């Protein structure tokens, strides 16, 4: 029988008190005597921290030198796109946070494509921003070019993509990280997780023997865990070109019982922009009217845009590749790890689509003052000596010089079914995983997981309940649900086709879906909250106005009839005009019926809400119907193997994934609707049994009482179980 045990735990209240009294908590070296006294009394009362104290042998001495500061609320391992969002979210929630990275100069580095956004990925960026994250703001501040994709294909798939200045991006993010209160940075290579007595995490230890303590630890190791890079047949241990891999952590995690596996990805060559002849190439310009990732108008500052170019592979390109296929890892057969399907190497494209005579190649600048040019769509596993000749077969690149060769990287990841949807591992309390360690790819996917694990790590350290974003609430939720539920065998990239409810999960409503949550969690400050509320008020006011203002005849009506091909009845509301095909808010503006005070984003919101109202309402009610059943929780301790009415496969898979809801269970591969029905029956049967037992106990208790009072009356017969 499980017993409920209590522990005392140093709470944020006390820490906040310290913070308020002595605001410079980060990197304190001089100990304030009053602060020490509070912390000290805390540790004597706290069971959780007492083991920590005694295990530190030089504790008494350490006090004098300030080693006590190596205790944190949250430790984030890794300073990439997941790590930065996680550390920022955690620190902003008031948790004392430590960011450990192998190299401070590489914080928020973009090792592959210098771009943020694209379909589905931009929705992630908007959502992270709506929750108070950073990625959208940084991308808005350092863009080289911006384009809206799918502009005419529907509001749910409209997507923003920005080419970013790679160095500026890293610098801006590093500045934010460095200037955030409660957040410390330190270079270190983490090799071990320190465990507590109850399968909980207590901290990490590093290669050079340091120990850092915290009740929550987030691992965002990217491609660094046992990373190995390949150029042709040659390989070396590295997380990225020129950066050493991290060793020891995989083995440690395996010892703790985690399952690890290996994934592969790659990046194309960089060429010197000054050696490329753009004159014959098709330019790709940015949008004239720039759109933004962030809902915060403070970062909406337009900058001069740079141009991308389009070139194509030639028959010589194809010839070189065909002649040298045996020199590539995949076709030579010395790298087994599978690469992602949506990011095939150029040799894959040529082998698999032999009838295609030419493939597109995009040339993208990596920055305003660096000469590097990213050759998009041209990643390869060929040896370096063949790479330059191959590049020179592309029109415009005939005389190019190569700055960095293309390479592939192999790394360890932990299949994410080992995490629950809060991104905390199921095995070890307080240990969180985010980013490529969970098998994803992409800065946006990493950032999305980062903010969730950051929030939850801080909440865990604070003894609060963890937040789970449901699949239907957001792309972030869809991403995490897919990761922890499905059996993924390639790096996971977010795509619009992965979301069944995408009409409801648009970029324009990311704020009205998630900013209230961000506010409740504590990531949206008063300024942002006020901006948000004012925006929503303006939108709903305008929708009301369009419903009430009616027109009869006139220029507007004539224009509407002409453009939509539909007649306009007398005293039609502006709303009804906006619902007609091809009629946009701009037309109302043109005839003086628009509201000049609305921003472009706000007009877009009004237009979408009105134009697609029927569809949106229908989707919403379908979702609502589904949600009642899907969100029914499943107990964590179910013995699936004992449920003989489940298929064998379902028993195995459900035991492995241990889903939290019926809906999640139904998405596990190999689980059929019949299994779900059987599961529902088991649950109900279990409930009834428990209820029966309670009744029985109650009866016994009553009986015992009555017997005490009236020992002469015998009730055993009536209460004996049949």
């Amino acid at each position, binding site marked *: 029988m*499980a017993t*409920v*045990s*209590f*522990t005392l735990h140093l709470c944020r209240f*006390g820490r906040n*008190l310290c913070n308020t009294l002595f605001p410079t908590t980060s990197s304190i070296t001089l100990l304030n005597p009053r602060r020490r006294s509070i912390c000290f009394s*805390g540790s004597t009362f706290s069971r959780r921290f007492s083991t920590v104290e005694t295990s530190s042998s030089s504790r008494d001495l350490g006090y004098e030198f300030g080693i006590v500061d190596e205790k944190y609320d949250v430790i984030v391992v890794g300073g990439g796109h997941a790590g930065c969002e996680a550390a920022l979210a955690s620190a902003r929630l008031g948790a004392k946070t430590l960011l450990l990275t192998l190299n401070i100069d590489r914080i928020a580095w973009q090792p592959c494509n210098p771009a943020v956004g694209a*379909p589905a990925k931009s929705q992630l960026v908007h959502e992270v921003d709506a929750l108070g994250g950073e990625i959208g703001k940084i991308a808005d501040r350092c863009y080289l070019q911006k384009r809206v994709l*799918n502009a005419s*294909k*529907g*509001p749910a*798939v409209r997507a923003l993509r920005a080419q970013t200045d790679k160095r500026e991006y890293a610098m801006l993010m590093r500045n934010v990280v460095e200037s955030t209160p409660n957040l410390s940075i330190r270079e270190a290579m983490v090799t071990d997780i320190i465990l507590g007595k*109850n399968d909980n995490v207590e901290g990490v230890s590093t290669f050079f023997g340091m120990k850092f303590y915290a009740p929550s630890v987030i691992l965002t190791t990217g491609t660094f865990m046992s990373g190995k890079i390949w150029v042709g047949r040659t390989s070396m241990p590295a997380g990225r070109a020129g950066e050493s891999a991290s060793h020891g952590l995989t083995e440690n995690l395996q010892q703790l019982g985690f399952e690890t596996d290996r994934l592969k990805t790659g990046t194309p060559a960089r060429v010197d922009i000054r050696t490329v002849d753009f004159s014959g190439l098709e330019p790709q310009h940015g949008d004239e009217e720039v759109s933004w990732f962030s809902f915060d108008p403070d970062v909406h500052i337009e900058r001069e845009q740079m141009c991308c170019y389009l070139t194509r592979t030639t028959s010589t390109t194809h010839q070189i590749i065909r002649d040298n296929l045996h020199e590539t890892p995949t076709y030579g057969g010395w790298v087994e790890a599978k690469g992602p*399907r949506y990011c*095939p190497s150029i040799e894959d*494209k040529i082998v698999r689509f032999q009838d*295609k005579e030419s493939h597109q190649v995009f040339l993208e600048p990596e920055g305003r003052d660096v000469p590097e040019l990213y050759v998009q769509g041209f990643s390869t596993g060929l040896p370096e000596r063949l790479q330059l000749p191959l590049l020179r077969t592309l029109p415009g690149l005939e005389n190019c010089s190569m700055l960095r060769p293309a390479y592939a990287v192999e790394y360890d990841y932990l299949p994410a079914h080992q995490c629950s949807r809060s991104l905390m591992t199921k095995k070890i*309390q307080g240990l969180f995983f985010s980013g490529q360690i969970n098998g994803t790819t992409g800065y946006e996917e990493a950032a999305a997981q980062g903010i969730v694990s950051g929030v939850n790590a801080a909440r865990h350290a604070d003894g609060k309940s963890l937040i789970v974003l*449901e699949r239907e*609430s957001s792309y972030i939720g869809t991403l995490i649900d897919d990761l922890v539920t499905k059996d993924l065998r390639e790096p996971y990239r977010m795509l*619009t*086709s992965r*979301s069944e409810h995408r009409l409801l999960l648009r970029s324009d*409503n990311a704020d009205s*879906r998630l900013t*209230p*949550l961000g506010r*409740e969690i504590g990531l949206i400050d008063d300024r942002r909250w006020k901006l948000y509320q004012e925006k*929503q008020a303006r*939108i*709903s006011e305008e929708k009301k106005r369009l419903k009430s203002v009616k027109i009869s005849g006139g220029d507007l009506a004539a224009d509407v009839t002409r453009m939509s091909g539909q007649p306009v009845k007398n005293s039609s509301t502006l709303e009804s005009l906006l619902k007609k095909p091809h009629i946009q808010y701009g037309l109302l503006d043109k005839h003086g019926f628009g509201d000049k005070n609305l921003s472009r984003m706000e007009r877009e*919101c009004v237009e979408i*809400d009105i134009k697609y109202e029927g569809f949106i309402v229908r989707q*919403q009610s379908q979702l*609502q*119907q589904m949600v*009642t*059943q899907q*969100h*029914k*929780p499943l*107990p*964590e*301790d179910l013995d699936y193997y004992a449920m003989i*009415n489940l*298929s064998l496969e379902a028993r195995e898979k459900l035991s492995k994934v241990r889903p939290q809801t019926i809906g999640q269970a*139904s998405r596990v*591969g190999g689980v*059929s*609707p*019949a299994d779900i*029905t059987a599961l529902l*029956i*088991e649950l109900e*049967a*279990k*409930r*009834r049994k428990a209820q029966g037992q309670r009744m029985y106990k109650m009866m016994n208790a009553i009986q015992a009482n009555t017997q005490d009072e009236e020992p002469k009356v015998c009730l055993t017969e009536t209460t004996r179980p049949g």
Partner: protein
Amino acid sequence: MAMVMASFRIVLHTNTYNRFFHPPTLSTWRRCLLFSRAFSTNYNYSVVVKKDERLGKRTENENSNVVNSTTIAAIVTSLGGPPAAVGIVRLSGPHAVSIAGRVFRPAVRNTWQPTSHVVEYGVVLDSDGNVIDEVLAVPMLAPRSYTREDVVELQCHGNEVCLRRVLRTCLEAGATLAQPGEFTLRAFLNGRLDLSQAENVARLISAKSMAAADAALEGIQGGFSSLVRSLRNQCIDMLTEIEARLDFEDEMPPLDLNGIMDKIQHMSQDVENALETANYDKLLQSGLQLAIVGRPNVGKSSLLNAWSKSERAIVTEIAGTTRDVIEASISINGIPITLLDTAGIRDTDDIVEKIGVERSEAVARGADLIIMTVSAVEGWTSEDTKLLERIQSAKESTGSSTPVILVVNKIDCKPSAETEWDKGCHSHKIFSKQVFTCAVTSQGIQDLERAVLEIVGMDGIAAGGRRWTVNQRQCEQLVRTKEALVRLQSSIKEELPMDFWTIDLRDAALSLGQINGEDISEEVLSNIFSKFCIGK
């Protein structure tokens, strides 16, 4: 000191606490809001299902105690037996009353205002307003009903045609066809029935849906199965074309809009035709299908003629006279039955006869019941064994369990066969029944009819025939597809952007899906990656 004490908080050790499981009660199944109280008691996480604030604070469907949000319908009285005086179509679920209200017109008033447990007389109308049947409507409102949901029973005439048309009208009005045992399942999940019954329900459900899933997987649905499959493939193909362009815009050539629209037009036409020509009533008229198979010249055609009291089939002494499948309709105790006389199954070089043999085997595979005929004169021959193996292997490959009746014909020529037969270890376990007949004198035909009825009664075909229920399912799939395609066409007509087309295409693909759950997204994605060269 007080300050120090205030800086501590008691935290539950969630790890141990979670093991202390209280099964959720009905009331905790309600939609979970942020930081909902319902969850905090059992689980140390909060689920976020925030709605878009811009959509306004709609509080529709707040009857949160409802476990199921769909409303199911089915004919609950048995079919296939002798026609009963009354048949019942039952609706159960949150929208039972509103759906019934759409199809039912009371005789006295114009609109139906149901009072629980009060019977009302009226008619059921189809979507065009034609009267289908006179019925009694019995509303039983939650929780005072079998399933503890709102239940409406429409008591119709026992005629199967009527019942099926009433059911279809209900499906068109928004009900979902009930799975086998689903009413009982809901009753249990909503707190009715006792625990011992639960186990039985579980077994019943899993067995039946497994069988259904198997049948679907094996592709032996008959009826519209090939049409359903091809429609579904077309939907997936179109989704692939569209979604590839949504996710990889600048890497794809523009979409051939006219091609897509033509395709959609074709699909709607196919669905329309299928529903038109092979709608319920006609399916019903075909009734149970009995295939008569056997070696050449054992008297299959004579049997058909005798049974149908006609001269439908040409009878000669020449083996291989019957080349094509010949049909004759009879009725046993009111059950409409189609007899299918087939070409004798043997290895042959005659091209026409060969086709006939192939058809015979196909018919045997598709029939509800097989009558294997042998000749009493020749007894059980090695060819018979071979033939039986052929049927059996066909059966194994399709996973079906079509019952087989052995008919020993020409008993008049060798009356001793009747007594000798059992001794000669000819009795194979595969045969559900064994009958001796003489087709020429119609001797034994009554025995044969009795055998058929017994099998119908004991083998569950009484519930409508497996092939029938599956076809009912297909019909529902087609109705849903039709709805989705109508919406799709109107989206195209209103020039809505391409993304909106995917919503209804997905709906169509889902409703055309097999019985087991499928992941359309994954299917579309792997199609995209195998079809198009994508990826920067």
